[in-house]
């Protein structure tokens, strides 16, 4: 329930926002458009008047009518005002105008403004004809009742009943009269003071004053002394049509007052509806404001929907919408462009200024609120998409080309090259389109044929580029995957994935996979055989251990018996040999484990020099009883390596035992520790008792310098030392030189514990 309510709130919020903004836009734009120009502002002002008879247009119309009638009454020309009417006098008196134009040769028309002196009789006759024609033209329009007299003679009138020559009938409450050089005016039955309180004011052409003769500085003149004019204006103008089938103009209408009123009415209703729109729009925005959070949810949802569209399509739509907005500009732009080029050619200033340009533009746009809405909402959706969408530009053609997870230099090079290619293509295309636009604007080229000529190859090459670039990038990606596969094999991962078979590199990948499988098989095989070996040795050693336990135990029991002299010695020998067998069994077990790589090691930083000192101290008894001397050269400062101390102790114990046991009696055994090339190097040297055989791997199992095997060793000492060293990450080498038996053990120095182990620091500090 709550979610449903929330959802409807979201929808409601969004629609009130959308509708509100749309209404405001469509109502405000025309208003702004008319506010931009002088005439627009005037029009607005007049529209706001309570009655059309209060408008400036009406005043203007009535004044000019009076002026014309005065001219007719005085026998002057009537044409002068026809062409100076404002644009709302939509229909000029074509019938009259034609007559006038036909009479051009008379001479008054062309330079009527400069006619000075007394007109000729012919001119007078012409003017009279003119006035007759005009009277003919307008007499059918009963919205204006007029009566023009000179003295007592009625010259022109469209009032049928002579009773009404000086009195308006009902329905005609606005009356303008001229008599004795002064005008009197009543609008809607109320007297209007034209010339101010005392009737002596000056005429100022400000739109407020009536353009009627009788002012101090605008007298009626001598010609009109005897003229009297009566004009009655209908309160509600009606449409009068006057057919003229015998003439060129089959029918025409002459309804300026009617149109004046109609224009005013329609503007008024337009203004009213605009105001209502604006009010509703504002109201909707007031509704939206508290719901703006919910509305943003709708924005998000819309962004989710628009996110599925290719970014390029959105861009195109936006462009189209903006073109709608720009369309009114194109005409102006052409002029502007021509003016600019012209101005440059003439080394003259630009005629059209930017503000003019903008004003024109807004006025143009104001005339098409239908165009502004799609443009506005397209822009809104686009920005909304950018704001809420997840990098929408990635979804589209560019997104298709976007290379994900390219790390290798060769891959980056591929994608960079694709980028450069695309960029150059775009540059060429942009230049071409710019040229085409230029040519079209200047009208110097036939339009569409040329566009097609250039655009089709451009589009074609774009498509080819896209396809090629995509292939390129797929290849680059596959290359990366293949490299990953090879790296995985290199790192010992034998299960990593394959490229699809249809890829260009599919075969190579398959082959790598084959190598992977082969290696995996070989490794599994080897592991299995090693494990079997260890199991064998373990089982055998176990089987040997049980009887050995009995042998040792009974030998011990025998020792406790009081045996006759030679038997006691025999028991001792038995006991010794049983002990040796025990040592051998344990050694075999350990060496086989170490060789299979199963040996667990606990690596930690330790001081190799200290370990050697401890080993020597531990073996002090053996060393003292040996017939040789141990010379040691160990540094006082710590030599830190990372190794397993217990295993390493066994290594050096074996090495020292070896050296002491096989050294020539009376000779010296040397134990040294030094640092060479970032490595700790231990060497144990002794002069062999016997001649050392050449070409023997002393670290192999059961190998001894003395092949007759008469001494106490198991033959496994060096093998154990070697495998333990390797398990700790060191290298053990046996390098005999003549009779000198040299064993070196190398370990890399621990980098973090270069001078002294932290463990020891902590211990000492306490």
């Amino acid at each position: 329930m709550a979610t449903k309510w929330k959802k409807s709130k979201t929808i409601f919020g969004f629609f009130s926002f959308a509708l509100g903004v749309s209404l405001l836009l469509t109502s405000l734009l025309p208003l702004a458009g008319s506010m931009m120009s002088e005439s627009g502002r005037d029009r607005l002002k007049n529209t706001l008047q309570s009655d059309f008879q209060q408008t400036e247009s009406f005043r203007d119309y009535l004044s000019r009518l009076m002026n014309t009638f005065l001219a007719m009454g005085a026998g002057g020309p009537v044409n002068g005002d026809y062409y100076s009417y404002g644009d709302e006098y939509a229909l000029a008196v074509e019938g009259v105008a034609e007559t006038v134009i036909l009479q051009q040769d008379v001479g008054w028309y062309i330079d009527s403004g400069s006619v000075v002196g007394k007109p000729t009789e012919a001119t007078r006759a012409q003017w009279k004809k003119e006035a007759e024609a005009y009277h003919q033209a307008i007499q059918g329009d009963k919205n204006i009742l007029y009566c023009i007299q000179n003295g007592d003679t009625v010259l022109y009138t469209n009032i049928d009943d002579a009773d009404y020559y000086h009195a308006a009938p009902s329905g005609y409450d606005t009356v303008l009269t001229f008599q004795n050089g002064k005008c009197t005016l009543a609008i809607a039955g109320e007297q209007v003071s034209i010339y101010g309180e005392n009737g002596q004011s000056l005429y100022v052409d400000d739109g407020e004053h009536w353009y009627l003769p009788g002012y101090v500085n605008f007298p009626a003149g001598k010609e009109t002394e005897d003229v009297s004019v009566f004009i009655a204006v209908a309160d509600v103008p009606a449409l009068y049509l006057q057919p003229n089938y015998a003439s060129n103009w089959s029918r025409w209408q002459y309804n300026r007052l009617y149109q004046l009123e109609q224009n005013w009415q329609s503007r008024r209703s337009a203004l009213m509806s605009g105001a209502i729109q604006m009010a509703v729009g504002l109201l909707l925005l007031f509704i939206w404001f508290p719901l703006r959070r919910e509305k943003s949810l709708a924005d998000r949802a819309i962004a989710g929907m628009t996110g599925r569209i290719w970014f390029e399509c959105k861009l195109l739509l936006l462009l189209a919408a903006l073109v709608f907005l720009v369309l009114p500009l194109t005409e102006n732009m052409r002029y502007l462009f021509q003016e600019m080029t012209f101005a440059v050619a003439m080394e003259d200033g630009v005629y059209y200024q930017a503000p003019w340009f903008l004003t024109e533009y807004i006025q143009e746009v104001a005339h098409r609120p239908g165009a502004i809405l799609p443009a506005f909402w397209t822009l809104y959706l686009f920005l909304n998409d950018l704001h809420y969408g997840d990098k929408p530009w990635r979804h589209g053609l560019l997104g298709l080309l976007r290379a994900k997870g390219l790390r290798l230099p060769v891959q980056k090079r591929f994608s960079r090259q694709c980028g450069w290619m695309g960029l150059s293509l775009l540059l060429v295309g942009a230049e071409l389109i710019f040229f085409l636009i230029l040519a079209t604007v200047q009208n110097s080229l036939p339009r569409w044929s040329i566009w097609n000529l250039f655009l089709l190859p451009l589009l074609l090459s774009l498509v080819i580029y896209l396809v090629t670039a995509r292939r390129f990038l797929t290849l680059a990606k596959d290359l990366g995957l293949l490299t990953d596969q090879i790296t995985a094999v290199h790192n010992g991962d034998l299960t990593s994935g394959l490229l699809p078979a249809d890829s260009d590199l599919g075969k190579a990948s398959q082959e790598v996979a084959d190598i992977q499988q082969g290696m995996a098989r070989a490794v599994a095989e080897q592991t299995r055989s090693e494990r079997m070996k260890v199991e064998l040795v373990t089982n055998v050693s176990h089987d040997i251990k049980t009887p050995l336990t009995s042998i040792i135990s009974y030998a011990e029991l025998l020792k406790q018996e009081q045996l006759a002299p030679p038997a006691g010695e025999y028991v001792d020998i038995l006991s010794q040999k049983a002990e040796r067998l025990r040592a051998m069994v344990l050694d075999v077990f350990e060496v086989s484990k170490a060789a299979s790589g199963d040996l667990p090691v606990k690596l930690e930083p330790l001081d190799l020099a200290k370990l050697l000192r401890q080993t020597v101290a531990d073996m002090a008894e053996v060393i003292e009883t040996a017939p040789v001397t141990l010379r040691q050269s160990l540094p006082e400062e710590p030599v830190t390596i990372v190794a397993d101390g217990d295993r390493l102790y066994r290594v050096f114990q074996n090495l020292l035992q070896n050296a002491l046991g096989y050294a020539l009696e009376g000779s010296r055994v040397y134990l040294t520790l030094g640092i060479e090339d970032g490595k700790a190097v231990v060497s144990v040297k002794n002069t062999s008792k016997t001649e050392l055989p050449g070409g023997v791997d002393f670290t192999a199992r059961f190998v001894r310098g003395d092949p007759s095997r008469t001494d106490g060793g198991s033959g496994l000492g060096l093998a154990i030392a070697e495998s333990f060293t390797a398990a700790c990450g060191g290298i053990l080498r046996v390098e005999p030189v003549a009779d000198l038996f040299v064993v070196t053990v190398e370990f890399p120095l621990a980098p973090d514990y270069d001078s002294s182990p932290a463990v020891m620091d902590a211990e000492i500090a306490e």
Partner: protein
Amino acid sequence: MSEKILVVDDDKEIVGAVALLLEAEGYEVLRAYDGMEALDKAVDPGLRLILMDVMMPRLDGLSAVMRIRERRNLPIIVLSAKSEDTDKVLGLSMGADDYVAKPFHPQELVARVKSHLRRYTRLGDVNAVQSARYETGRLSYDPESRVLYADGEPVKLTATETKIVDLLMSHLGRIFPAEEIYRRVWDAESAYATENTVMVHIRRIREKIELEPKEPEYLKVVWGIGYKMEKK
């Protein structure tokens, strides 16, 4: 009445030899040749200790240990030909008190048996005077009187040995470099042969407290770092 010990092994010769060795020390020996038989014999109320082989027919040693543990609280030493560390850990976690790898030294086995029996029989009166002693396995050290007990028996130590024991027992599990031991015990800056000097004393102490001095359980060398008393 002499103390009874149950020896279990499927190898009759081994049982015989162990029995002879123990009888020579004055113990009475019960014999069993597989796990089931061991369960039957283990109900003897006079029984003080069991030696149990692992690999046996019918019921293996570790299962037998578990089932005996359900009913009886007496020291059990596991004998095994398997010398891998995991077997040792498994044996101890099943409820065995000690582990001896085959082939063993008869004397070591006897020493272990004696050690466990001493501790087991002594358990009753131990609780009374547990003041501020340092304890680890079969060792305990009284810092007041500066006496080290192994299986409840006081160990005779020289003055220097006592100082070393005092230092190590009061910091069980902590590793001391030879230099520090030297500085603290001899109260002098370490000289050239520090390692040797310390090691000589360590070895002597081991001979007095360890059952098998060559494979020490308590006083251990941490190779390349120092020495410590194992915390158990």
